[in-house]
C-alpha cells in the first residue's frame, strides 16, 4: 500500500467513525438508543492511527468513550449499533450498551466506565501473554483524567518493576468532564511516568492519523523486540459535550475558538473533497447497521439472568 492509499484507507475509517456518531446524534432524540453516549467526534485520528498498527491478536483495553476504538480495531458496526439499541444481536447482547463495548474476535477486549479501571487489567493481560508466550501485544487507552487515579500509579509501578510489555496510550483531551487539566494536575504526565523508569513518547499533532500510525507502529515493534512498558501521550480534542449528543460551549468552560484550532487540522473537516467521495459508501453501511439493529429482537427475561456467574 502506497502512502496515498494508506491515507485514504485511514481517512475512510475516521470518516466512518464520525458519520456513525453523527448518525447517533441525529437519532438520539428518538430514544431508540437507550444508553448514555460519550462521543469520540474530534478524537477519531487517535483511534485510527493506533489501531492501524495493530492486528486482531493484539489486545486493546479502553474506556467508556470507545465507539472510535471499537470500530477502528475492527469491531462489527452492525453489532455495535444493535448494542446501542439494546438488542440481542448487540456485541454484548444488550447488557453493555455504549459504555461497555467488546469485540473479542478482533482483540477489542473491554471498556470500563470507571476511569482508569482498565489499566491494571491491561498490565495483567500483558503479563499473562508474556508468561504464556502469546504473540499479541497489549495496549491500553485512557484519558488524561485517568492519570489522577491511584491505580494508574500502581499499574505503572508494577509494569515497570516487572518489565511488562504493555503500551500505555494517554489520549489527552485536556478535560475531565468540564474540568481543565491545569486545574487538576500538579505534574506533567510524561515526567511523572519517567519517574517510574518508563520510556515516554509524545505525538505533537493528534489529528495526523498517518503520523500517529507510523510512530505507534515503530513503538509496537520496539516493545515486541525489547519487552518493556512504554507510554505515549497523544493530544486530542473532544468536540462534543462530555456525555450526550450536544455541544456545551454555553457552559462557559471552553470556547468555540479553542476548537477552531483543532478543526483547522482535522482532515475530516478540511478535506471536503475526499469526504464527498467516500461519504455515500459509508452512509450506506450505516443504514444497513441501523436496519440490522432495528430488526434485532429485544433481549428476553431469560437473558437477564444469563452470564451472571
Amino acid at each position, binding site marked *: 500500500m502506497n502512502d496515498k492509499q494508506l491515507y485514504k484507507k485511514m481517512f475512510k475509517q475516521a470518516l466512518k467513525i464520525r458519520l456513525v456518531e453523527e448518525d447517533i446524534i441525529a437519532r438520539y432524540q428518538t430514544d431508540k438508543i437507550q444508553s448514555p453516549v460519550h462521543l469520540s467526534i474530534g478524537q477519531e485520528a487517535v483511534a485510527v492511527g493506533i489501531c492501524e498498527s495493530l492486528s486482531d491478536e493484539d489486545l486493546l483495553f479502553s474506556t467508556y468513550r470507545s465507539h472510535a476504538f471499537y470500530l477502528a480495531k475492527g469491531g462489527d458496526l452492525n453489532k455495535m449499533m444493535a448494542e446501542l439499541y439494546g438488542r440481542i444481536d448487540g456485541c454484548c447482547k444488550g447488557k453493555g450498551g455504549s459504555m461497555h463495548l467488546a469485540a473479542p474476535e478482533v482483540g477489542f477486549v473491554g471498556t470500563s466506565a470507571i476511569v482508569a479501571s482498565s489499566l491494571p487489567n491491561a498490565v495483567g493481560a500483558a503479563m499473562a501473554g508474556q508468561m504464556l508466550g502469546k504473540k499479541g501485544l497489549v495496549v491500553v487507552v485512557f484519558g488524561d483524567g485517568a492519570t489522577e487515579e491511584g491505580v494508574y500509579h500502581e499499574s505503572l509501578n508494577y509494569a515497570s518493576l516487572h518489565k511488562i510489555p504493555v503500551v500505555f496510550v494517554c489520549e489527552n483531551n485536556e478535560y475531565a468532564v468540564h474540568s481543565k487539566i491545569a486545574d487538576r494536575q500538579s505534574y506533567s504526565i510524561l515526567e511523572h511516568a519517567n519517574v517510574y523508569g518508563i520510556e515516554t513518547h509524545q505525538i505533537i499533532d493528534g489529528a495526523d492519523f498517518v503520523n500517529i500510525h507510523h510512530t505507534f507502529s515503530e513503538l509496537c515493534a520496539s516493545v515486541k523486540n525489547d519487552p518493556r512498558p512504554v507510554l505515549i501521550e497523544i493530544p486530542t480534542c473532544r468536540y462534543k459535550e462530555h456525555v450526550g449528543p450536544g455541544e456545551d460551549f454555553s457552559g462557559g468552560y471552553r470556547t468555540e475558538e479553542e476548537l477552531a484550532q483543532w478543526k483547522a487540522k482535522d482532515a475530516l473537516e478540511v478535506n471536503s473533497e475526499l469526504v464527498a467521495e467516500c461519504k455515500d459508501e459509508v452512509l450506506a453501511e450505516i443504514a444497513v447497521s441501523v436496519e440490522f439493529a432495528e430488526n434485532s429482537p429485544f433481549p428476553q427475561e431469560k437473558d437477564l439472568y444469563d*452470564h451472571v456467574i
Partner: protein
Amino acid sequence: MKTMSYGDALASAMLSALEDNENTVIFGQGADDFKGVFGTTLGLPEKFGKHRVQDTPLSEDAMTGICVGAALNGLKPIHIHIRADFLFLALNQILNMAAKYKYMFGGHYDVPIFIRAVIGRSWGQGAQHSQSPQSLLAHFPGLKVIMPATSQSILESYKYAINDYSGPVISLEHRLLYDVKFDVEESQLRKGSDALKSYFVRSGTDVTIVATSIMVLEAIRAAKYLENYGISCEIIDLHSPTDIDEELILNSLNKTGRIVVADTSWVSFGVSAEISRIICQKGFGLLKKPLVSLGMVATPCPTAKALEDLYYPNQGQFVEEILQLVDKKDIPIPTEKSMADVYKKFKGPF
C-alpha cells in the same frame, strides 16, 4: 481418616493448585517470604519458581486488576490478603470489574480469579485488622464467597473453585482456625459445585443453629455442652453466603421451630439478616420463637482485651441464647469470657 490442621490444609490446597494447573499463579504481599502467608505458601517459590509465587507491591487495587487482566488472558491467579480489611482497597476491581466482566460484556469473558483473605480476629487486632466482610461481598451478583470452617472444606472447595470454576471466588479464612486440627476423610471429598454447598454438621431436634466459619466450632461446643442437659441442637455450616442451601435450613427449622444464626460479623444487613429474609419469605410460620442473631456488637472492633471480650459473642452468651429459646432455666451458663483464648495457639503479633 487423617488429622490435618486448617493451615496445613491451606498449604496443601496451594501446593495442589500449582501442581494441577501450570497456569495458576499465586500473588500476595509476602507470598514468597520466610513466613509464607502463615506457612501456607512456604516452599512453593523454590519448587515452582518466583514467577508462580509472586510477592506484590502494596497495591491491592492494581494487583486485583492485574489478576483480572491475567485471568482474561489465560492465567488462573490466586491473590492473597493476610487481612481481609485490605480487600477494601481493591473493591473497585472486585465489585466493578471482576464481578461484572462476564455479565456486562454479554458472556464473552470469564474471570477465574481466586482471592484468599484472612479474617484477623485473634487478640488486640483492633478496628482495621479484624473485619469479616462476607455480607458486603455476597451482596453483589457475580461473586462467590466461601467461609471454610474445616480442613475438609478447604481441600474440597479450593480444588473446585481454583481448578474448575470459571468466575471470581473470595474465600474468607479465619486466622483463629489456622492451628486447629480437624479430621479429614480424603476419600470423601465433595466434588464439583457440591463443594460449595452448606454442610449438615449435626442432627438435633430442639434448635437449629446456622453458623459461619469459626462460629460453627462455637456452635458445636455449645451443642456438646447442652447435650449433657438433654437439649438437642442441629447445626448447619453455611459455608457459602452466596450459595445458601435454603432447603436444608427450612427443613431443619420445620423440625425444630427455633433458630440461632451465628456469624463472624455484625448483625445488621448481615448473614442473619439474610437468613431471616429467607425464613420470612419461604418459611413463614415455621418459627415458634423469635430468631436469635449472634454476632459482634454494633461498634468498630476495640483493641483493649477488656472491651474486645464484650464485643465478640462468647460461649456463655451462645448457651444462654439457646436456653432462652428452649425455655430452660436452672442450667449453668459457662463462664468463659473470651472465645479467642480457646483457639489462639500462636504467640505474637499475628
